[in-house]
């Protein structure tokens, strides 16, 4: 439900009857919430509500792409490692997951973002924008966890009769892994991926908050909070409170969705959720 509302708002932002999130209105700086501006305005007179809605596009885009990227790498590697049980390839892949698990990825990501700089950089002819860097680093940090889940199911499925039957019919390993085994690994991966979308939203907001993520003036929940930091002492509470509430509501939504999917797809995972 919550996820649906947020997604709809994000998708419909261009046609909703809301103000331009970038329009400056210096005559109405830091206006309190009221009939004119439902959630007030920020230090440049920009409408907070419309910035939150436009900001949801950035946050969802980055979070969803990061999780998809993590799934792409993690699941592919995990499935191959699980199928090629006992091979050197399996050892290399699982070792890589171990290494990624045992380093402080968030700290490393922040350092790498710092070295690359927040502005777009060009490497080997590719232009890396701030968003692509964020997606890459957050996605990478999800890879080992998603990979291990895919690996665990591939280990089990690879020994199942239906896979061996296919193999006896002469199917190649690529077909076996991606056509036969993959669909059986999907449910548990989806549950984890949904929960990770929530984490990705928080990580993106945190990075943007400290100035290493989405760059102003693009509205994002993290940059809005970074601006708001200066105004909590002078009483303009709305600039700080509402973007955070938007983050909470969205992340709660993804967490509840993840729990519900677990009950639906992976019922051994726990009791029925009473939330949704």
């Amino acid at each position: 439900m919550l996820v649906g509302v947020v997604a709809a708002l994000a998708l419909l932002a261009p046609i909703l009857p809301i103000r331009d999130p970038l329009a400056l209105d210096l005559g109405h700086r830091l206006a309190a919430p009221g009939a004119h501006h439902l959630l007030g305005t920020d230090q440049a007179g920009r409408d907070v509500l419309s910035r939150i809605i436009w900001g949801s596009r950035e946050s969802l885009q980055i979070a969803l792409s990061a999780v998809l990227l993590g799934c792409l790498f993690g699941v592919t590697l995990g499935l191959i490692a699980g199928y090629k049980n006992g091979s050197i390839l399996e050892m290399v892949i699982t070792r890589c997951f171990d290494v990624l698990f045992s380093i402080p990825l968030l700290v490393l990501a922040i350092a790498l973002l710092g070295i690359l700089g927040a502005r777009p950089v060009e490497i080997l002819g590719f232009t890396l924008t701030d968003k692509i860097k964020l997606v890459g680093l957050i996605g990478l940090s999800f890879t080992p966890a998603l990979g291990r889940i895919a690996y665990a199911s591939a280990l089990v499925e690879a020994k199942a009769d239906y896979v061996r039957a296919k193999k006896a019919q002469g199917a190649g390993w690529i077909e076996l892994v991606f056509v036969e085994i993959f669909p059986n690994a999907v449910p548990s991966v989806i549950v984890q991926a949904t929960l990770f979308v929530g984490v990705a939203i928080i990580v993106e907001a945190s990075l943007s908050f400290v100035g290493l993520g989405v760059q102003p003036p693009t509205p994002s929940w993290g940059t809005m909070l970074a601006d708001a930091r200066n105004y909590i002492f002078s009483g303009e509470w709305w600039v700080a409170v509402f973007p955070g509430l938007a983050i909470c509501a969205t992340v709660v939504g993804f967490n509840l969705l993840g729990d519900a999917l677990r009950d639906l797809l992976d019922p051994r995972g726990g009791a029925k959720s009473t939330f949704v």
Partner: protein
Amino acid sequence: MIGFLAKRLAFAVTVVIAVSFLIFAMARLVPTSPAYLVLGADAGHAEVAAFEAKYGLDRPLLAQYGTWIHGVVTRFDFGVSFVSGRPISTEVAETLPVTLELILASMVLCLAISIPLGVISAFQSGGFVDHALRVVSVLGVSTPGFWLGLVLILLLSVKAGWLPPGDLPRPSDGVGPHLLALILPCFCLAIYYTAIISRMTRSSVMEVLHQDYVRTAVAMGLSKTKIRMIYILRNGLIPIISVAAMSCGYMFGWAIVIEQVFNIPGICRALLAAIFARDYNLMQAAVLVITLAFVLLNFLADIGYRLLNPRVSW
């Protein structure tokens, strides 16, 4: 057991070396020489070359790394910051204890809340505490700590004036104000892991609750309290130890944001400041120290788990 320890230690050392080399190399692949930071953007070629020769920046990457890591290991010498001119070891010695205190205090707070909460909700599954825990834990994992920090500063510091909004006075200037200033940052850093660990405690205790040996103990007529305290908790809480140690490691990442919000002079804030000042020497030192702490915590978690749980082979 010795074999396991040796293997585990070798892995940890390899990881630390790999991560520190990665950061070291990345920082040196940046096209602009740090010489321009020190000498100014309009420095001449000869000056830059002299500067690079003085600090060994013209040597091959591996040789530079070798010298650096050798200095770190043998003399606790991380080199000199090109921005402030101070030795980085001083910087690390000043800021690391602050972050360690913040993280340990947060973990103590986290365990003090989450273990009783998780245990009670497991024992009274379906009761009030259990339902409350479900709601609180979803909110806990969904609330960004830094935003909670802003809101709490707004409510408790600006409006109510109960707690200081930031800055961490040294313990030598009075233990009271020091501890008071730690409350908000610790709470914000702890909330996410409080939610996670209380849920884990619940499911871990629930699992033990249905084991055969517990049923046997009940059948033998042992008192409920004795069964719960000795038989269930001792086994149910073992997994929590490694989760807690790993969470401490992850807290270093979140501490970067929390130290920023509360203006706490820890190593994570120093890392962020170094990034923005392009102070790569300080940055690589901070990443090395944090990685070391992270790997060490994981190592201890592994050892502790095996020591407490004799069923896991070495």
